[in-house]
């Protein structure tokens, strides 16, 4: 199986986010970065499918130069090669632009399966994968918790709301958006990290691909949400705060 995994590099989960003076985005240079959480699960699923059925795992990413680190990390875990469509615009681009850039970056090469995460932790559009599927003319299914190859294609388990699921059968080639928790992700080995350095990473620019970005939506301003609810905070040492909370729950909220 020839598999593409789309992965995005996003600010690390514990990042202290501070809005830049102009209010257009967060102060990017202060952050550390990691692979978007569901994308790490998508990568793991791709690697497992390759181990089972043979083939190749190619990692595709649109992002600034620093995103190469995410691709190398994926290679250290076992991805065979990488494609980076490099441009700072992807830090906060709309999924319309990103999907078009990724489609161009794949360069008409034929793949059996494309995996993406279901949603990015920073922009959270939940669109890029499905949009890419349409651009490439592929059937798709989203929020996937299980992938099995079967005669004539795939059988996948789609997560629905409130603890419900559904199996969907589909032909290949296809695109799936993967939900966190589908598998248990592996760690990179020292050997893997060493090998990753020698694997092929193709860097492409938008100019080389002949793509001009035409966003369909733009972020005008980013800000800390105004709180509408007043939370009563218990101050003091842990012991004092704990005692106050028990008091409140007993005598004010009367829930104990």
């Amino acid at each position: 199986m020839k598999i593409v995994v789309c992965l995005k590099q996003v600010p690390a989960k514990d990042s202290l986010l501070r809005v830049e003076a102009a209010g257009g985005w967060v102060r990017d240079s202060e952050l550390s970065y990691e692979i978007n959480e569901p994308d790490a699960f998508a990568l793991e699923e791709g690697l497992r499918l390759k181990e089972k059925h043979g083939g190749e795992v190619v990692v595709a990413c649109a992002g600034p130069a620093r995103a190469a680190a995410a691709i190398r990390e994926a290679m250290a875990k076992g991805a065979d090669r990488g494609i980076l469509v490099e441009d700072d615009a992807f830090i906060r681009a709309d999924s319309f632009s990103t999907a078009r850039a990724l489609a161009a970056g794949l360069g008409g090469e034929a793949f059996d399966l494309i995996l993406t995460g279901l949603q990015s932790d920073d922009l959270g559009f939940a669109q890029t994968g499905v949009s890419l599927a349409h651009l490439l003319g592929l059937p798709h299914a989203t929020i996937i918790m299980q992938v099995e190859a079967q005669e004539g294609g795939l059988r996948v388990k789609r997560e629905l709301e409130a603890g419900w699921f559904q199996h969907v059968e589909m032909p290949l080639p296809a695109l799936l958006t993967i939900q966190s928790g589908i598998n248990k992700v592996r760690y990179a080995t020292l050997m893997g990290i060493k090998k990753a350095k020698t694997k092929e990473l193709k860097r492409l620019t938008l100019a080389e691909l002949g793509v001009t970005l035409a966003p369909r939506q733009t972020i005008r301003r980013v800000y800390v949400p105004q709180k509408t609810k007043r939370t009563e905070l218990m101050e003091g040492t842990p012991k004092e705060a704990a005692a106050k909370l028990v008091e409140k729950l007993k005598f004010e909220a009367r829930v104990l």
Partner: protein
Amino acid sequence: MSVLVVMEQQEGAWHKLSWEALAAGLELGRALGEPVAAAVVGEALDALETELAAQAVERVLSLRHPLLAAYTPDGYTTALEALIRETKAAWVVLPHTYQVRDFAPKLATALDCGLIPDVIGLRVEGGAPVFVRQLFQGKLNADVVFEGPPPYLVSVQAGAFRADQLQPGASPAPVERPAVALESKQIRTRPLERFQEAKRTVDLASAAIIVSVGRGIKGPENLPMMEELARALGAELGASRPVCDSGWLPLERQVGSSGQTVAPKLYLAIGISGAIQHLVGMKGSRTVAAINKDPTAPIFEVADYGIVGDLFEIVPALTAALKSSS
């Protein structure tokens, strides 16, 4: 420049978020001074059409076809793309459900237009709507505007628009059933039965007190500390998704959009950031208390009481305080 609200139904029952999308669509229509139509997609829709026609909409557009009886992204996209092109609807409002997440980005791409997803607010500035949505899992908000020509697609987040304030229309709206051109070969995926996993052994929905733990507890080795607190409170243990994904607690203890919906008299969230998918599962709790080291964590948006600090110091202190006060 009319507004079209796409309602969601499943086997003849509305998805309740549809009404919030309708409320958002009507608000947008009022702000822009444009008429609002509502669409429903499926096969046997008579009762739903009548119910929808009672709302204050200009007309009901009912897309009926045997191939739309079961949801597929190909079927829904084909039918809705044609409807949006024919009606020239400029603003298309949808509920941000799992199903909408599955087809709306495809619909937008087919229409070569933008989709602003998961919107929590809107206002009109200089004749153009500005939409508010969350970034970084609720830690920041963004004002977002559309670019390029219409149509413009918007999906709305649960809890952001008031369905309880919908007023019926003066007279029933006309129901139209535009012809749907759809062939089975256009539908490439085959959906099978919907199912639930093995029966649950814990019923969080009936628990009076829930101590719910998130990724902040770091690892399963810290669960005994949380269990001790739960015992001191006579509480059931709940969890956020990553805790169940990592196998620290079984899936049946997950609270949220893909887990259980709970409404205890006390919900104590420990090391949970408060992403919307978690909040929808516990917002109905009578009293919410949260322990988190980050004072800006979105969980404090729903918490009545909070302690900002290190949970590994606070939880044992809380257990001790409970034991000594009883």
